[in-house]
């Protein structure tokens, strides 16, 4: 059975239909590329799955969970983590703290335990810290662990966000344009990192990306959207050569 099943999702903003009965599935362990021209509805779909937007109709199933019936702050709890196109980091917190925040839903310490530093709270804090340090080491970020996130190079920030998403120990990792703003060499490295993380942490990955070379090389499967509709689904090479996709990208031939 597939891990994520998106069925007939419709989202309208005023008169604009951003998603028009979009449907697709991802199997456990897959890396799925989600492509499409600007405005195709990719980020909207992410926002529906992470419950930041409400779908007008359709359903999203994740394992046994009905995603659309889950409140936004519990999405992390059912095992879905994501990154943001324009970085969803916490600039005044240190890198280490950013990653530890990623593990928020896995931990339990509340106000009173925190204030009085109960043994349980201290243990949990130590474990979270160790986990975060391990992830930072995996992503070669240990050297910036104690710097505030604000002011670090963009490529580094992108990786920090990745690290933080990993810290959530989720089953599904949704990456929204992880390559944007990265240099050529960084993009290549990113592809490898995504595969490495998938293997090491048993992840399923849903990847929105414009950098086609990267998407095509890293994905097991690609879904193409245009005007909110799915126009192609298949292996990277199938999708790459799909006429509908080519038209969506390169445009109609001039008459």
């Amino acid at each position: 059975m597939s891990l994520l099943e998106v069925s007939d999702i419709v989202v309208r903003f005023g008169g604009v239909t951003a998603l028009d009965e979009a449907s697709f599935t991802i199997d456990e362990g897959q890396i799925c590329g989600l492509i499409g021209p600007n405005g195709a509805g990719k980020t909207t779909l992410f926002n529906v799955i992470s419950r930041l937007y409400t779908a007008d109709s359709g359903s999203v199933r994740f394992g046994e969970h009905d995603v659309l019936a889950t409140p936004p702050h519990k999405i992390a709890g059912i095992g879905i983590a994501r990154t943001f196109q324009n970085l969803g980091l916490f600039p005044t917190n240190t890198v280490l703290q950013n990653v530890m925040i990623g593990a928020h839903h896995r931990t339990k310490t509340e106000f009173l335990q925190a204030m009085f530093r109960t043994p349980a709270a201290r243990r949990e804090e130590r474990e979270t810290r160790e986990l975060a340090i391990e992830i930072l080491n995996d992503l070669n970020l240990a050297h910036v662990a104690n710097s505030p996130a604000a002011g670090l190079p963009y490529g580094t920030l992108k990786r920090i966000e990745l690290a933080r998403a990993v810290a959530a120990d989720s089953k599904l990792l949704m990456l929204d344009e992880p390559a944007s703003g990265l240099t050529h060499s960084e993009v290549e490295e990113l592809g490898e990192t995504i595969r490495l993380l998938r293997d090491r942490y048993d992840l399923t990955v849903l990847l929105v990306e414009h950098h086609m070379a990267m998407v095509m090389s890293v994905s097991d499967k690609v879904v193409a959207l245009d005007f909110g509709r799915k126009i192609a689904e298949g292996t990277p090479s199938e999708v790459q050569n799909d006429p509908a996709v080519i038209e969506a990208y390169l445009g109609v031939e001039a008459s």
Partner: protein
Amino acid sequence: MSLLEVNNLVAGYGMVQVLNGISLSVEDGEVAVVLGANGAGKTTTLRALTGMIKTSGSVLFEGEEMVGKKTDQIVRRRIAHVPQGRGTVAQMDVDENLDLGAYIRTDKAGIAADKQKMFELFPRLAERRKQSAGSLSGGEQQMLAIARALMMSPRLLLLDEPSLGLAPLIIRSVFDTLRQINTEFGTTMLVVEQNANLALSIAKTAFVLETGDIVAGGSAEQIAADDTIRKAYLGI
């Protein structure tokens, strides 16, 4: 001398450098396009040209250096810029948007005449003169944005992805209009576009941008025949 000559233009946002020193030129009266996938730096290029972001390098417009000037000073050289997402003022009606377009002009009679011309060019806008721009359809908004820019009677028109978010039929009519404007008014244009085939159909010159660098440039036919674009777009 070219109307616009860009040399080694470097630009970006905050810590991120997007353009790594691009060079291109646009001749008077022609339509030039910059193609590239999302994130290649197309929008950044236009924003750099009108001084909306921190920029270094050289931008010569009619032989005059634009780098270091403020946006309103650059615009006053009659460079019109239609930004992505159309750049109309949603809360104002069609008439007011056109008036705003003519902000730097003082010739009242000329403005009125140009406005009339716009309504002839875009009859739909004439019907919706008193509607707020926000209530127009996507295509109409794009038309309004172009009309708004033309109200300046620009020497150079910069267009940022005019096809974005429009249905194929509408896209075609937008490009037809652009071609018409170029032939009728002789307006020089620099269009950045993802929809390569369509853009190339109206262009004389084309450049391909890939992650902040111009990877190909030449006549539109040349570029259309080339496979740089496919590679840049689809990673083939």
